[in-house]
């Protein structure tokens, strides 16, 4: 039996995204944004959209595979997968699910995408619309919302607070993560925060959202869509772009991480304790081989945990490692979130991070890292399930 792996079997052959908007500013409906991103990814790949035979997404994306296939007049739909739960934690798993369909012969050309128009459908960060009027709630939220622990920053701040307490991490470490994203966004014309630089003084003076998160520790909310196209490695070589191969993929959760009302066994954690080792094992690489990282930045504190759990530094060394000079594309030890990410490029639920990792391996990022043959994407710290991807060039297969 062949080795069970995705390494080298599947490649990303095209990427595309819409214009990125502040939430509520897209003139187009969410589904139209999804279509635009899909077609741009096809154009990038030099591919007739009618070759698409699969869709994969996550985060309960509303742009259903069946409607997309109908709208695009596809001759057939073969694979339609949705990663359960975890919000943005599925951004890498969706790619892995699509790749698995190709590697097992269930599809030939899968689009992986996320479309999100928060103006049309409501923001995650505000209890508004029908949600605000609801008299009762159920599930985990019923143990949290009556105490005013409602929005994502409120649900994650206590994990970060405990982590900072356990390991002596200072606010400056979180600040460096925010500064890196904004630094890179200034050189990325797609970024919503392009032309809006951030410095340490502005960060320090910004209001608290929920301690220990300042305003700039929290991601934006946006309207936009992003997509990529997967094909099997052999056919990818015939496409217009340099193929970017999957080296490794892993997703999941540690023991009882999602147990209700903050009863995770490993509470102060990004939830990569079981996932990161699987990722490195499949890819056959080590942290020192990774040249550039896109780490899901809904909140800076989650990036802190994720980087430590992927072996880039022990938690006790976070204050020394997490300084701006180490995190910038030009000359940094570990270039981080080189498009600006969720904090400063666009909150497409982390899918913009996957596209940026592809650009890095291609060598076409506006903040190009020097070492780009192995690029890591980390999806969704502190949620369950989380997911990871390692992408690489043909040289590292």
């Amino acid at each position, binding site marked *: 039996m062949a080795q069970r792996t995705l390494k080298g079997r599947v490649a990303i052959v095209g990427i595309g995204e819409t214009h990125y908007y502040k939430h509520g500013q897209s003139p187009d409906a969410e589904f139209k944004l999804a279509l635009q991103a899909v077609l741009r990814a096809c154009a990038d790949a030099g591919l007739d959209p009618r070759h698409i035979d699969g869709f994969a997404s996550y985060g309960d994306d509303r742009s259903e595979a069946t409607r997309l296939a109908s709208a695009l007049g596809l001759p057939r739909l073969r694979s339609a997968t949705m990663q359960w739960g975890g919000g943005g934690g599925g951004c890498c798993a969706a790619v892995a699910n699509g790749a698995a369909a190709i590697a097992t012969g269930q599809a030939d050309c899968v689009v992986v995408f996320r479309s999100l128009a928060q103006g049309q459908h409501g923001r995650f960060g505000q209890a508004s619309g029908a949600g605000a009027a609801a008299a009762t709630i159920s599930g985990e939220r019923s*143990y*949290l919302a009556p*105490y005013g622990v409602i929005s994502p920053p*409120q649900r994650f701040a206590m994990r970060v*607070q405990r982590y900072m307490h356990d390991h002596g991490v200072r606010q400056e470490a979180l600040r460096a993560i925010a500064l890196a994203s904004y630094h890179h966004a200034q050189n990325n014309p797609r970024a919503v925060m392009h032309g809006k630089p951030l410095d340490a003084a502005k960060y320090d003076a910004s209001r*608290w959202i929920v301690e220990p998160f300042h305003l700039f520790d929290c991601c934006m909310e946006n309207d936009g869509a992003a997509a990529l196209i997967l094909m099997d490695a052999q056919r990818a070589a015939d496409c217009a772009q340099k193929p970017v191969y999957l080296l490794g993929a892993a997703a999941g959760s540690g023991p009882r991480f999602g147990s*209700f009302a903050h009863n995770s066994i490993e*509470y102060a954690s990004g939830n990569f304790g079981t996932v990161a080792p699987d990722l490195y094992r499949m890819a056959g690489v080590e942290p020192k081989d990774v040249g550039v990282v896109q780490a899901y930045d809904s909140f800076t504190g989650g990036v802190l945990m994720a980087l430590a759990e992927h072996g880039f530094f022990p938690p006790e060394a976070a204050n020394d490692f997490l300084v701006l000079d180490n995190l910038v594309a030009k000359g940094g030890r570990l270039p981080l979130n080189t498009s600006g990410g969720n904090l400063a490029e666009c909150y497409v639920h982390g899918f913009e991070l996957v596209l940026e990792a592809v650009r890095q391996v291609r060598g076409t990022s506006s903040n190009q890292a020097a070492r780009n043959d192995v690029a890591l994407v980390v999806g969704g710290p502190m949620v369950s399930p989380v997911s990871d991807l390692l992408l690489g060039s043909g040289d590292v297969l």
Partner: protein
Amino acid sequence: MPVAETDGLSAPYWAGLQQEKLLVQRCSRCKRWQFGPEWICHKCHAFDPDWVEVPAEGRIYSWERVWHPVHPALKGHCPYLAVLVELPHAGGLRMVGNLLGDPLQEVRIGAEVQGVFEHHPEASQPYTLLQWRCR
């Protein structure tokens, strides 16, 4: 603010709070503590774990001070403190609540706290929340 819907699984917990009793699950077979409640014991897979009363006393495991109101009912009520309280008498289970008193007080992880049953009899479906105060 929205209140908890007392589904079949969580009904004993919310009913207990109304009687000023803190109830959590404990498996009658293997004695494993469990919260939030579930239909099965995560250790030995016996169904329908027992509900047992534990003292409403604990230690602050983590905390947050909320400055930005995200619900219309919270406008004008910020900042406020949320705490995660570890229950040493219940195998280290944790509960989320509010820390009462000055919202600007210095909060210390590890501080001992006492539960306070906060009744809401005026609600259309009366309910009780479990809040915390430093001891």
